């Protein structure tokens, strides 16, 4: 279970749980963490952000004043192109907020999202691709394993991104 070290303020909790990379499996992690208080801190109710009206989209709650386009782009694997395409598919204008969408459309969007390779599936796919490179003993696979640049960049300086990202158990 993902638990930040310190007890953040209620706002931070909202952001952390909304933007948690990897998302939450509906009804499991997300539900579990929001109904309990892992820090046993007094004061602010831990799930106070639930008091605002929220819209449930692919297992994640979004405040209804947020733009739908931005909400879609919080999912790993959805950027401007995909969000634009999804909005176009359902004839939703760019500035539509999450709260203004008809519940039926929200369900349809959720169905659309669940058919796409996003979030955990996409992260898994990326990991598999790297694992494949490594298993067949390719140079790219080795470089990934060593945490070094893969595409012929120099290693004398500035390889922080490679160190951060190039690993066989890459998060996403």
């Amino acid at each position, binding site marked *: 279970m993902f638990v930040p070290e310190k007890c953040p303020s209620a706002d931070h909790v909202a952001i952390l749980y909304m933007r948690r990379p990897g998302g939450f499996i509906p009804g499991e992690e997300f539900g579990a963490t929001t109904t309990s208080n892992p820090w046993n801190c007094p004061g602010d109710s831990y799930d106070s952000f639930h008091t605002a009206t929220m819209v449930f989209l692919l297992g994640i709650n979004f405040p209804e004043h947020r733009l739908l386009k931005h909400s879609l782009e919080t999912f790993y694997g959805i950027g401007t192109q995909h969000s*634009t395409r999804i*909005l*176009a*598919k359902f*004839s939703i*204008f*760019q*500035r539509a907020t999450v709260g*203004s969408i008809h519940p039926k459309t929200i369900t349809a969007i959720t169905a659309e999202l669940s058919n796409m390779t996003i979030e955990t599936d996409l992260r898994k796919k990326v990991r598999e691709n790297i694992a494949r490179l490594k298993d067949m003993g390719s140079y790219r696979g080795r470089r990934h394993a060593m945490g070094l640049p893969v595409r012929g960049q120099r290693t004398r300086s500035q390889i922080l991104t490679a160190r951060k990202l190039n690993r066989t158990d890459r998060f996403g």
Partner: protein
Amino acid sequence: MAASINCWKCLSRPSIAVIQLSSRVARVAASAPFSSTSTNLALPAPTRKAASTTKGVKTNLKINKKPRPKESRKPPATGERKALRKRIVLSNTNALEVAGMEDLSPEIVDAIAKDTAEGEAGSGLVGKVVGLPGATVDSLRAIEAFKTTQGWGLFRRPGTLIRKETADLTRALLAAQKEKSTLTLMLDGAKGTGKSMMLLQAQASAFAKSWIVLHIPEAQELSNGVNDYAPIPGSDLWAQPTYTAEWLAKIGKANNEILKTLKMKNTHNLPVPIEKDITLARFCELGSRDPDIAWSFFQAFWTELNLPGRPPVLLTLDGMSYIMGMSEYRDTDNKFIHCHNLALVKHFADHISGTSKLANGGAIIGSTSRSHNPISLSMDLAIYQALQRQAKQEITQKDPFEKKYDERATKALQNASAMMIGGLTKKESRGLMEYWAASGVLRQRVDEQTVAERWALAGHGVAAEIQRGALRMRI
């Protein structure tokens, strides 16, 4: 002889005791001339030593920044700032009432139409400012004809300058009413010349003459993707439900006086049942309640307006170049939708192209916007060609190597006439400045010289520039 302190001629050195005493006395005198308390006699406080940089001990190199001051006041409520930005002030109680200013009554509209360019044969209203009557002001406000940049808030009550172009336009409107024909017109001119004001004058005249006025104040709101849209089943058109509903409400409010006297005659295929024999005002109100039915209601409303015996209609739009290309909306295949596939825009385009006519006469007027607007080559060419056609000159053909023309825009505008609005004449400028002086806003003598000066400085009478120079940038 003991050496005196003050004896500078004396060469012998004073004893140490004397030096100590004298320096102490001097210090006491410097620090506290009228006090001899023991605290003041104490040694001065040691100066703070610079932070020592001991090896291995970290020194704090951070500059302590002041934390950002917390917002103590309440943040503005949703929509509050926009309301302030869009607020239209139409009265200034500090300005003087202008004596002898006539109101834009139906008779005055007739008189304006009779005015020729020189104002000799007619009523001589060209170059004068006429006031807008209260009912017209309310209607104009309802259709959002007033703009924040037009300086209405400087004067006691709204008034507008009658110029040569106003007379021409009014004449054309009245002719259309008389002959039950449809006037299609594009208004163009440089920034600040009064295109939107010309629209407003046409609308005011139309209200005075009991026409029905429909106005789209910002064409960009139709095309830039800020309003919701939905496909219309069985066509390739797209409705804009919320905008249409709000528009219907505005139409109903602005034309309430006439619409409440007109009753529905036909039965229409509407998505919801309505009462029989309701007035058109009530019909507009019903249509504006639910965005999903607004477009069907608008279509029925338009059909009703074109039945015999109804008043003429004025349909106007400001910022035409925004609807002469692709919109920001996308269809289900993720392709941009052409503006003329938006039902409301198509309605306007069909009428300005002459494909659809107004059965009871009236006018379709589109005005361009020349400040921060998209370039529409087709529209610019169409206006240019229309002007040449009217002047019976050789018509410029389109550039064969240019690819940015829009075929549908060209088609929509090819039959419309055009009016180029330039600067005011000196006579008109003088009339305007005299009105300002009479309102007490311009505190300057208005004579030939000052008028000529302002006129020249304002790019040969560009109205907004004259106003800016004379009223807003006074030093």
